[in-house]
């Protein structure tokens, strides 16, 4: 790792700022492990696990670290705890498979890697692990099949190099066949964050691009690169990488979410709605995902569907002001003024100027001018520059 000391300093500062943050301790452990500083890595990982005993990345890296110290069975037992708590977890199955392969437990290793493959079929980096496992077991046919499928999957990407074959070959030799900890794919992300914070966004982006070449078809890395490109306003490239991520792995909800906005920027609202629909389907309890989906539906004139989404948000959280205001506005458009008033008159958002203006509108339409004035005066007390409140107050009259 090029910027090791910078990364370690950054992470140590983060652990001082947030000593109860398991992910930060885990990242510190991961970077130390990658640097070969196993004892220090174990200390950091143990701190992470003291906060969150099942923090997967920390458990997995700890298992590999124990293996480095010649404690392979202790490492294996570490996996058992994680595997017992969530038997069908993709990352755990893959890491356990790699761990078993590393220690020559080839049949068990292949079985776990194939389980991971079943959970996320077609993912090139999993196929690469499977190919390496089959090769060790002497099944060249199955190994070639995985390599071919991995190559075909990469060809669908519009991002990255024109030909991924050489990249895949290099990755197999340097990483997949070495049975290294799959969580190490996280290390370039940490490095990129450090570079970004140091004002070296260009180098950070390059670091993530390299990471995507070292771990081809790794959807989380593609998402991270997409985020960097987005931050640097390279929207077209960001769209390619986010699209690539969801092409590789349909569970990448963050990528779908970002694509919702990127497509909207290009005025392609049908694609925006489609992407956000996917994001909501993957994360149905995230109110902000639903909110943005509903907003794009409203923009497309699909107000019935938008209304349903806003209602669902309020079922999840009756205090969601963003949804309440939009839903009240739809009610007012449909002349359902009482519904709008009921929605807006209580809740943590009831003093929002925009909510008060809407409530005033509903009262005015119901002929309750005095109530309308009260709402507008409250809105202006919060924000005297609110022009909608002022205009409506003039219209309602003294």
């Amino acid at each position, binding site marked *: 790792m090029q910027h090791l000391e910078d990364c370690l300093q950054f992470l140590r500062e983060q652990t001082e700022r947030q000593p109860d943050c*398991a992910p930060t301790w885990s990242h510190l452990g991961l970077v130390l492990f990658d640097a070969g500083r196993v004892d220090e890595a174990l200390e950091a990982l143990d701190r992470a696990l003291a906060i969150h005993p099942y923090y997967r990345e920390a458990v997995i890296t700890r298992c590999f670290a124990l293996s480095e110290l010649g404690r392979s069975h202790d490492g294996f037992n570490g996996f058992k705890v994680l595997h017992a708590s969530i038997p069908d977890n993709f990352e755990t199955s893959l890491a356990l498979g790699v761990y078993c392969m590393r220690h020559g437990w080839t049949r068990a290793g292949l079985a776990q890697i194939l389980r991971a493959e079943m959970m996320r079929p077609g993912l090139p980096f999993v196929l690469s692990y499977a190919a390496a496992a089959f090769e060790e077991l002497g099944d060249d046919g199955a190994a070639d099949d995985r390599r071919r499928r991995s190559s075909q999957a990469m060809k669908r990407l519009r991002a990255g190099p024109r030909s991924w074959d050489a990249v895949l070959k290099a990755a197999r030799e340097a990483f997949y066949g070495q049975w290294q900890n799959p969580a190490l794919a996280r290390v370039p992300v940490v490095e990129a964050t450090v570079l970004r914070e140091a004002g070296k966004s260009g180098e950070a982006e390059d670091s993530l691009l390299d990471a995507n070449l070292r771990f081809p078809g790794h959807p989380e890395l593609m998402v991270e690169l997409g985020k960097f490109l987005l*931050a640097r306003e390279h929207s077209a490239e960001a769209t390619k990488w986010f699209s690539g991520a969801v092409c590789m792995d349909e569970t990448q909800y963050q990528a779908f979410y970002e694509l919702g906005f990127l497509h909207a920027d290009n005025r392609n609202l049908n694609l925006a709605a489609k992407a956000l629909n996917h994001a909501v389907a993957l*994360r149905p*309890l*995230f109110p902000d995902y639903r909110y943005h989906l509903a907003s794009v539906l*409203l*923009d497309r004139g699909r107000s019935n569907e938008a209304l349903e989404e806003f209602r669902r948000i309020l079922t999840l959280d009756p205090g969601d002001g963003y949804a309440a205001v939009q839903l009240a506005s739809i009610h007012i458009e449909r002349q359902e003024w009482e519904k709008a008033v009921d929605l807006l008159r209580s809740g943590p958002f009831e003093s929002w100027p*925009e909510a008060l203006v809407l409530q005033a509108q509903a009262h005015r339409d119901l002929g309750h001018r005095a109530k309308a004035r009260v709402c507008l005066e409250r809105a202006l007390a919060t924000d005297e520059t609110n022009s909608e409140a002022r205009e409506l107050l003039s219209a309602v009259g003294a």
Partner: protein
Amino acid sequence: MQQVSDYEINARVRSVLARHWVDTAKLRFGSFRGTVRLTGELHRLGGDTHTTAQLASKLDCIEHEIQRLRGVKRVYIQLEKWAKNGTGDWEATERRAAARSSAVPDAGASVTSSESHVYELTARDARKVPVEDHEEEERIVTKDRR
């Protein structure tokens, strides 16, 4: 002037926040007829080396950039631990600690998506639950915090 839809404004606000590496897992944003609102907590993605003064300056930048977006009439920002002082500058407060002990929820505070903050749940919650389950539970626990 051609009306800019709420969703278009939201997409542009998202771009502003992305440029500044704001973690939108903890910060909610939305717009309604040109009124943009931000609520929640201000954090930067992947960790933060900024001092409070630098974050205040960043918040100011974000506010001004959003105000300059086409179609935006006004911006309301209600973030935990941040408030404007008498001179209109952003400064860090201790409202977060006070708000948690208060019976009245923060005005406008909303549940946000959670992608990486499962450790917060664990710090509060004695149950030992594997990581995936936390993502959904974080929503409900975050709600209870208000």
